[in-house]
């Protein structure tokens, strides 16, 4: 089994991205020729081929890039995880061997994955802690950045000034500037005194108070890490058609209603995007303890790069599942029914506003 894997299967892994790219390119050329030769016909097949060709036209550079720079790396790192990687005059891959019950030497390609289970005793606990932290932080970050974006989008004095300030976390949190500041001890602004919170929470049962005080202690960090989300929301708000707000105003809807029935439905896809972004940054950021575990394993003498690669792949599967759950919770329920994704958002927003009064008013307007 191991022998077969090492000799027949694994060496092919590296070529998969290039073969894939080649096949897609060949198919595209064939489709292009077909479309050129039989361009006069207006059959569904023709339409389908033209659509596909245009689709690939737009993603083509990216597709080439992702095969060369990303998928090849993915294939390589998968490959490494089935070997023992040594840096000896360049990179050497040594097949993993073990002994079977009879004492014969056999190949054991899965040894790295198995030993992650055996050696990383802290892995499950760290993972559980991370998941709980994620569940607590995600809604806070999303709600916070949405509120800020709404405020920045409203009519306020000094809007340009405020918007510039709220761009600061994007500049600072991603760069070495942050290190400079933490080195100076200024990033922890004494806004929320820890003592006050502890005294407030002391009356509560522990299972509630602990996560809340954790959340508060991370409040500043959350503030600093939501710069990107705020800006994405702010940009998303520009997409809400102003006509809809006007219609709502005529209808006499309050600000609160407008928010729930127009703004939020339009922003739903932005919320999804921001949630995905937040989950991914929390999961793969350098402050994540699991990334720390992986880093330590990479450079540990008895574990090494291949072992860490196996660990990362297992972790990636878990993060993907977490992401899928987030996606399923946030995505629109109607998505299953509606096939035309294009009109969905606008329509659903409008559906919220479908009072007869509005319709009438709009019609009267049109007539005038």
């Amino acid at each position: 089994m191991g022998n077969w894997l090492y000799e027949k299967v694994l060496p092919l892994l590296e070529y998969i991205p290039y073969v894939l790219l080649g096949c897609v390119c060949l198919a595209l050329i064939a489709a292009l020729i077909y479309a050129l030769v039989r361009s006069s016909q207006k059959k569904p097949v023709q339409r389908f081929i033209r659509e596909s060709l245009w689709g690939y036209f737009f993603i083509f550079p990216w597709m080439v890039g992702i095969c060369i720079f990303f998928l090849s790396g993915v294939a390589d790192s998968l490959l490494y995880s089935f070997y023992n990687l040594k840096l000896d005059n360049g990179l050497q891959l040594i097949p993993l061997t073990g002994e079977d019950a009879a004492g014969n030497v056999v190949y054991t390609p899965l040894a790295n994955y198995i030993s992650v289970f055996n050696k990383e005793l802290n892995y499950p606990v760290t993972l559980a802690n991370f998941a709980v932290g994620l569940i607590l932080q995600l809604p806070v970050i999303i709600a916070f950045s949405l509120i800020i974006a709404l405020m920045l989008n409203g009519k306020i004095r000094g809007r340009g000034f405020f918007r510039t300030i709220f761009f600061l976390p994007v500049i600072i949190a991603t760069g070495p500037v942050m290190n400079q500041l933490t080195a100076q001890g200024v990033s922890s602004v004494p806004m929320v005194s820890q003592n006050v919170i502890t005294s407030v929470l002391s009356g509560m049962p522990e299972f509630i108070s602990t996560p809340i005080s954790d959340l508060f202690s991370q409040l500043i960090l959350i503030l600093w890490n939501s710069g990107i989300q705020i800006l994405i929301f702010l940009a998303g708000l520009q997409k809400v058609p102003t006509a809809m707000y006007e219609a709502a105003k005529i209808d006499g809807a309050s600000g609160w209603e407008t928010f729930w029935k127009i703004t939020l439905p339009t922003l739903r896809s932005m919320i999804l995007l921001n949630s995905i972004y937040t989950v991914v940054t929390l999961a793969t950021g350098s402050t994540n303890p699991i990334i720390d575990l992986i880093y330590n394993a990479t450079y540990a003498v008895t574990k090494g790069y291949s072992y860490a690669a196996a660990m990362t792949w297992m972790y990636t599967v878990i993060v993907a599942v977490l992401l899928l759950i987030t996606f399923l919770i946030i995505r629109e329920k109607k998505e299953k029914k509606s096939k035309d994704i294009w009109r969905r958002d606008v329509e659903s927003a409008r559906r919220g506003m479908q009072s007869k009064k509005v319709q009438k008013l709009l019609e009267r307007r049109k007539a005038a």
Partner: protein
Amino acid sequence: MKKLVSLLLVLAMALSLCGFAAAENTLPELNTTDEITITFLTWDDFELTQALADKFHELHPNITVEIIQTTTGDCTATLTNLAADNNLPDVFFWLDLDPLMANPMCLDIAPYLEADEEAQTKLYPSLRRVGYVDGRRSYFMPGEFLPAVIYLDKAVFDKLNKELPAQDWTWEEMLDLIENMTDPAQGIWAYNFYMGPVTLGPVALTDNVLGEFGWDGENYHFDTGWVEMVEKQSEYARLGYQALQGSDAYLAVVPDDMWPGESGHVAIQMDAYWTMNNIYTQPAALERGLQMVPYNAPLGEDTEEAGQFGWIDMISVSATTEHPREAYEVAKFLTWGKEGWMERANLYGTLTNAAGDKIYRLPGSLPMVEDDEVVAALSPLFPDLGYWNDWSDYLANIQNPVTFGGRTIPGFNTFIADYYHGSDYNGYVGIEAAINAGAIDPYDYTDALNEAGRQYYTDAMKVFYSVYGE
């Protein structure tokens, strides 16, 4: 004919013996004809390294040192990338020993070290054999040294009518001071630390120590220094000898919760060399009446060949270098070698940035060779504090520096992460957490720790032998 042949043979043998003997005692000559470029990976200050490299080029015009600048954060990943690409720098600083033990990246420099009289006589004894991973072959040597410094506040000592100890104080004297200098009435804590007794103690209290936790080259000795100090350290915190930032008692005396070392309320601050920059280049600290006197880490009274804890970065020559002899010379000149150090001391005093400001207010690191000339060149670079000015005395008391296990002991990092800080001890994760909570008696665990440490070391050495050969 036969005679002639045998005569020639004897002659040849004699000649080769001579040559062999000569090679054993002195370093081979440097190449002085070919144009050679040696690449040098470092995270140290660029201006300083460049100035040293220029000086080397001045002395050896055919050898150019090309600096590859990195940061401590990127260093290990950069080395991995370059090694995978078979493009390792000829000489490189590194942060963790383990990846180098798992991959044959380093050259055995033992032949050079053994033929180098300076390495055999001038280096601090504890540093001479620091890179001998298996006792026979040496894969690295010391690159930069910053000792642990214990600052005693003379003003606080005066307040309590205590005498400052001598520069060659002992570990027992220090413990005695810690246990007797807390005075809540005057708002004085006996001590505070960055690296505490648990880190410094085992090094100071174990005979013939070579590494952290009493490492002697083959075994840890958790039973000598560690077990007492881990108990004392948690006891001192419990009894309120230690100034704890953020604690109610500390906030009552120092409302702005400033770093205890600068607060003027701490008698003994166990800290690091680079903290001098904060203490001695800031008149503000002195204006508050701080009179910090630097001490080297003390040694145990009855300990033979004990060490002083310090921060030492190591440096290696690449296994794939084309010019090993020249690479060794560059590595030596830019790190511990006396010739390079004299230039370095000069640069610490004179180096300026493009704007004309001095870069160093104090020497950036300390020498690794015992040499009066170096001490003489270095002493004037330290400030006269007024209340104290025995810098040469301070410098003379540095002996046997010993550094982190992660730099010198194969398998140490995994042992600490997985076992020491990672295992379960009576419901607590990590042994220090369990001891601080009073959940376990450390004396019950010394054997287990020694044994586990030994096991991690043996596992790591197995990997090392499989990689570098028996």
